C-alpha cells in the first residue's frame, strides 16, 4: 500500500476540500465587514479557483491505471468524468454572484465543493465501500444545498422530500452491496465480477442487483423512481437545482456504468438480466418524462420531466456502452448537463428581476434581455436535439449505437425508435418555452429590461459557446473520453 500514490490519485479531491476550508476561513476572517454582494463574489471566486486547480491536477494525474490496491481506477473514463463534473460545478458556482438572495455565501460554496469532491471520487471508485462513501458525501451535500433557502418553505420541503427518497435509496444500495459482499466475498468490483463469472447465478444475487438498480434509478431520476425530481427542481435554489440536475447525473451514470459493465451485472449467465431491467427503466422514463412534460405549466417542473426523459436516453447509453465504449454516454450526459445548467441559470437571473415560475413569466424575454433569450434558445434547442447543437450529436451517437447493438428488432433498437418518436413530442414542449420567450408580448407590469450580472452572464455565454463548439466539433471531446 503506497500512500504517496494514493495522495497523487486523490489530489483533485484534496484541492477541492482545501478550497472549501479556505472559502470558509476567508469569509470568517474578512467577510464580517463586507456587504453580501462582495462576500458572494469572494466566495465564488475562491471556489472557482480551487475547481480550476483541481482540473489542472486531474490533467496531471492522467490515465495511469489503478491506485491504492485497486480501490481507485484512473482511466480515460475517470479523467473525462472528472473534467465534466468540474466544469459543470464551476459553471453553477459562477451563477451565484448577483442572482441569489441567500445568506451564508461561504457555506453554500463550501458545500458545493464538498459535493464536487464526492462526484470526482465517484468517477474513480472501483470498490463498493469507496463508491458508497463518495455517493453519500455527494448526496448529503446536495440535500443541504436543496434546503439552503431558509426563507422559503418550498425549499425546505424540496430538501426533505429529496432526503427521504435519498435515504431509502441509500438503504437499498447498502443492502444490495451487503448481499453482493456476502455472495462473492469481496468488495472490489473486478474481484466480484470474476467471482460471478465463475459461479452460476444465485437468486439472492438477482435480489441484490434489483436493489442496486433501484438505488441508481433514484439517483438518475429514472421512472418509476423519479417522484422526487419535479419537487426538488421546483423548490431548490436555482444554482443548487442546476448542480443536482447536471454534475450529479454525470458522476452517477459513470459509477453505475462502471459497476454494470465490469461484469457485476451478469448475475444470471448468458442473457444479462440487468440489460432487461435497465431497458424497462429506460422505456418507462422516456414515456413518462416526455408525456407528462406536455402538461406542465411550471418551467422548473417542465425541466424536471425533460430530465426524466433524458435519463431514459442515458440508460439506453448504459445498455449499449458496455460494447461500444463510454465516450457517447459521457458526451451525452455532459452536454445535457451544460444545457440544464444554462436553463437554470436563465431562471436564476429572471427570478432576481421578478417571478419565474410559470412559462408565461418568460413572456417577451427577448425584449427584456436579448442575451438571456439568445442563451435560452441555445440551451432549449440543445435539449430538444436540434443540429448543429451538441444535444443533437449526443442523441445521434447514442441512437446509432443502439441500432448497431442488436439490430432493428432488438430491445435496444426498439427503445431507440421509441426515443426518436418521442423526440418529436419533446420538441413541442421545448418550443412552447421559446414561443413565450420570443413571440409572446411581455405581461403588463414587468416590461422593464433585466440586468444580467457579469459572472452569470459569462457563465451562460460559456455554456452556450461550449454547446455550439461541441456540436460542431464533437471529435475533440470524444477523443478525450476514449
Amino acid at each position: 500500500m503506497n500512500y504517496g500514490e494514493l495522495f497523487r490519485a486523490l489530489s483533485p479531491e484534496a484541492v477541492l476540500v482545501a478550497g472549501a476550508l479556505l472559502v470558509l476561513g476567508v469569509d470568517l476572517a474578512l467577510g464580517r465587514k463586507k456587504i453580501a454582494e462582495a462576500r458572494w463574489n469572494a466566495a465564488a471566486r475562491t471556489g472557482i479557483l480551487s475547481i480550476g486547480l483541481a482540473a489542472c491536477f486531474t490533467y496531471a494525474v492522467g490515465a495511469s491505471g489503478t491506485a491504492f490496491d485497486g480501490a481507485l481506477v484512473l482511466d480515460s473514463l475517470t479523467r473525462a468524468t472528472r473534467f465534466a463534473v468540474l466544469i459543470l460545478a464551476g459553471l453553477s458556482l459562477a451563477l451565484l454572484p448577483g442572482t441569489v438572495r441567500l445568506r451564508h455565501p461561504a457555506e453554500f460554496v463550501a458545500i458545493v465543493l464538498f459535493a464536487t469532491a464526492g462526484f470526482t471520487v465517484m468517477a474513480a471508485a472501483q470498490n463498493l465501500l469507496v463508491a458508497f462513501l463518495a455517493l453519500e458525501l455527494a448526496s448529503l451535500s446536495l440535500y443541504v444545498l436543496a434546503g439552503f433557502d431558509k426563507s422559503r418553505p418550498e425549499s425546505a420541503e424540496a430538501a426533505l422530500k429529496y432526503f427521504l427518497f435519498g435515504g431509502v435509496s441509500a438503504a437499498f444500495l447498502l443492502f444490495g452491496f451487503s448481499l453482493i459482499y456476502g455472495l462473492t466475498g469481496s468488495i472490489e468490483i473486478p474481484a466480484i465480477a470474476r467471482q460471478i463469472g465463475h459461479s452460476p447465478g444465485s437468486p439472492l444475487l438477482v435480489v441484490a442487483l434489483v436493489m442496486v438498480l433501484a438505488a441508481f434509478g433514484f439517483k438518475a431520476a429514472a421512472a418509476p423512481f423519479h417522484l422526487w425530481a419535479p419537487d426538488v427542481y421546483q423548490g431548490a435554489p436555482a444554482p443548487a437545482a442546476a448542480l443536482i440536475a447536471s454534475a450529479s447525473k454525470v458522476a452517477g451514470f459513470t459509477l453505475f456504468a462502471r459497476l454494470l459493465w465490469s461484469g457485476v451485472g451478469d448475475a444470471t449467465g448468458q442473457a444479462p438480466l440487468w440489460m432487461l431491467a435497465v431497458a424497462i427503466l429506460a422505456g418507462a422514463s422516456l414515456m413518462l418524462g416526455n408525456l407528462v412534460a406536455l402538461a406542465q405549466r411550471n418551467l422548473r417542473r417542465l425541466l424536471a420531466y425533460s430530465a426524466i426523459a433524458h435519463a431514459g436516453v442515458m440508460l439506453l447509453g448504459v445498455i449499449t456502452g458496455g460494447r461500444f465504449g463510454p465516450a457517447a454516454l459521457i458526451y451525452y450526459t455532459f452536454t445535457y448537463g451544460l444545457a440544464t445548467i444554462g436553463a437554470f441559470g436563465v431562471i436564476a437571473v429572471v427570478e432576481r428581476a421578478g417571478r419565474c415560475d410559470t412559462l408565461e413569466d418568460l413572456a417577451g424575454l427577448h425584449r427584456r434581455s436579448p442575451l438571456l433569450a439568445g442563451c435560452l434558445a441555445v440551451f432549449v434547442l440543445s435539449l430538444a436535439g436540434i443540429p448543429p447543437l451538441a444535444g443533437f450529436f449526443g442523441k445521434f451517437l447514442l441512437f446509432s449505437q443502439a441500432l448497431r447493438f442488436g439490430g432493428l428488432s432488438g430491445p435496444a433498437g426498439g427503445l431507440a425508435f421509441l426515443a426518436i418518436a418521442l423526440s418529436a413530442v419533446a420538441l413541442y414542449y421545448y418550443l412552447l418555452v421559446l414561443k413565450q420567450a420570443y413571440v409572446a408580448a411581455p405581461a403588463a407590469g414587468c416590461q422593464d429590461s433585466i440586468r444580467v450580472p457579469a459572472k452569470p452572464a459569462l457563465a451562460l455565454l460559456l455554456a452556450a459557446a461550449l454547446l455550439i463548439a461541441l456540436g460542431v466539433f464533437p471529435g475533440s471531446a470524444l477523443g478525450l473520453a476514449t
Partner: protein
Amino acid sequence: MSLSPLQLCLLFSSALFCVGLFGALARSNTILVLLGIELMLNAANLNFIAFWRFGGAHAPASGVLFAIFSIAVAAAEAAVGLALVIAIYRHQKNIRLQDASRLKG
C-alpha cells in the same frame, strides 16, 4: 428443520429491513420515517457482520470495515435529516408529511 447461524442472521436482517421499509413508507411523522430509514441501514450492517463472521474465509475484515463506515454515514445522514426536520418545522409548525404538500403539479 434447523437453520445455520448465517441463515438466522439473514432472516433477522431481512425482517428488520422490511420493518424499516414499512415504517419509512407508512408513517406520517417525519422523525419516525427517519427511524425507519435507520433500521434499514442497520439491517444492511447486520448483513455485513454476519457474512464476515459466518461466510467462510473472506478478505480480512472488509465486512466489518464496511459496517463501521456505514454507521458513520448513518450518523451524518441523521444529522442532516434532523436539520431538515427543524427547517420544515419552522415553516409549518409541525412535522407531519401530509402537510408538506406545497409542491405539486
